[in-house]
């Protein structure tokens, strides 16, 4: 089960609101390459992993992605902090405000609500792990795009942190795949 510690994994302290950036970053909350998709994908796939090591890594990376979801949510919340509605209109993010106000909602940057169609979870661990490798690259590339768009160091720092975590997760999923291939190599799976 899960436990909560009253701190974010990386410090988020954004002093200057920026609603446009908030909406762009929202894709990593409820979008196709975002942290919610990642957590649900790995926490669902963990049930189908064949070895203790691979169960552990899916479990633990899935858990870390929930912590990253929290970082993204915090960033969006702080970037929208106290911005007057008329300002949001000028910045062309009023359509999202009309539905949610300045709240954090799981959608992509276009307001498309989160869907489990972004993830797959199969009984075949080799298929699962290859999807996980792809997912980490897509997340890493998305952080590349967001970092290029950002100017504020308070925004760039957490994004850089999250980007590097995707690189590390890719390595771990790669190792998990090596292990599963070892185990499955010893017996035929049909």
């Amino acid at each position, binding site marked *: 089960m899960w436990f909560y510690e009253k701190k974010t*994994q990386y410090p988020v302290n954004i002093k200057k609101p920026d609603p446009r950036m908030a909406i762009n970053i929202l894709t990593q909350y409820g979008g196709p390459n975002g942290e919610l998709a990642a957590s649900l994908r790995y926490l669902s796939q963990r049930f189908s992993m064949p070895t203790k090591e691979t169960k552990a890594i899916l479990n633990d990376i899935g858990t870390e992605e929930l912590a990253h979801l929290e970082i993204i949510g915090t960033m969006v919340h702080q970037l929208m902090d106290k911005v007057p509605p008329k300002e949001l209109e000028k910045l062309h993010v009023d359509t999202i405000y009309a539905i949610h106000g300045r709240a954090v909602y799981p959608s992509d940057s276009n307001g498309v609500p989160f869907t489990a169609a972004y993830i797959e979870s199969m009984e075949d661990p080799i298929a699962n792990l290859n999807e996980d490798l792809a997912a980490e690259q897509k997340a890493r590339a998305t952080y590349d795009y967001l970092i290029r768009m950002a100017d504020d160091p308070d925004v760039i720092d957490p994004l850089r942190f999250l980007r590097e975590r995707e690189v590390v997760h890719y390595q771990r999923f790669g190792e998990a795949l090596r292990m599963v291939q070892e185990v499955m190599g010893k017996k035929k799976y049909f």
Partner: protein
Amino acid sequence: MDEQTTLLEQIMAYDFALYDLQLFLDTHPSDANALRDYKMALEQSENLKRQYQAKYGPLTPRYLPNTTCWQWINDPWPWDPKGGMNNVVL
């Protein structure tokens, strides 16, 4: 940064190191070097958390120094802007 923020920054750093080492150990479960470094970071983290919670309140609900008030709910929560827990500057 004040003392609370400095302590919190150190805790964040050691807890992060622990998590990165945890993932490494999941795929390298008998790596003696990683286990040694994990143990050292764990001691640091536990020690710092003891100091932090005694002065500034709970980081988890499983910390109850007195039974007259429930401190877990107290502000700030990690996402609160300005004056939240995250005045940490790295």
